[in-house]
């Protein structure tokens, strides 16, 4: 059952990314292009996604997941250098070509060679992230 619902969630997520325009890098870059021909579509995507998700978080209160276990607890509200540095690096890459992790997989079948190169290099980046993380942690403990 876990596999079935994981597949369904992934499929719905992918359908939403395609329909909303999140896999169209021109739309993504258009939205990030505040000083150019700004395209507001992505604000609607974010809004449309956050509303059902906020309702879902409300439903979790006092309950457990349908297939057992516990709901993920809220992370400590700690804003460290990893969060900020990581988000800035991610944003630079996202703005550069207009792809983020979800859409890179959703568009893999129609994204051509570029899509494959993006996914491969993203996975490489994920492999080298742990030592970079350790380095930032070492700096944080020294300070």
């Amino acid at each position, binding site marked *: 059952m876990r596999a079935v619902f*994981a597949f*369904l*969630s992934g499929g719905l997520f992918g359908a939403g990314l395609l329909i*909303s325009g999140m896999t169209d890098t021109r739309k993504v870059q258009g939205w990030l292009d505040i000083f150019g021909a700004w395209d507001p579509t992505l604000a*609607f995507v974010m809004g449309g996604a956050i509303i059902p998700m906020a309702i879902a978080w409300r439903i979790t209160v006092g309950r457990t997941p349908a297939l057992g276990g516990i709901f993920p607890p809220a992370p400590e509200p700690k804003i460290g250098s990893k969060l900020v540095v990581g988000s800035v690096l991610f944003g630079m890459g996202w703005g550069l070509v207009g792809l983020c992790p979800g859409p890179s997989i959703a568009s893999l079948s129609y994204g051509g060679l570029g899509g494959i190169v993006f996914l491969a290099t993203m996975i490489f980046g994920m*492999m080298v992230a742990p030592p970079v993380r350790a380095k930032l942690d070492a700096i944080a403990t020294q300070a």
Partner: protein
Amino acid sequence: METDWIYGLAGGGLIGLAGALFLLVNGRIMGASGIVGGLVDGSAGSQSAERMWFILGLFLVPGGIALWMGDAQTHLTDNLWAIGAAGVLVGVGTRLANGCTSGHGVCGISRLSLRGIVATVFYIGAGGLSVIMFKHILGVV
């Protein structure tokens, strides 16, 4: 196009429903970078199979829709160096920040997580600067 916002809102709604389903049924946060990243660095452990099924759905369903509709396009730049650099930045960045657009942006903001909000402000800000720099000033994409 004038109707783009309707597709945006409808597609966004599906993304939110997907996240709600994964949370309420499987008890997991729908964060694409975490789901993939945990498989890549081995931290997914016993959740590996579940994550593989999620990724399979994420790959096959939009692929099927694109095949059926026949006009899906990513309009990705053909500058492979820029794509490679962006891929590495996205991979390292999302793993350091422990989340991306889906995890911090959709799942985090919707539970009013401070980390999610701060991350989103920084990646959208950096994304905006990146477009100005690489598209308008340097013209590489």
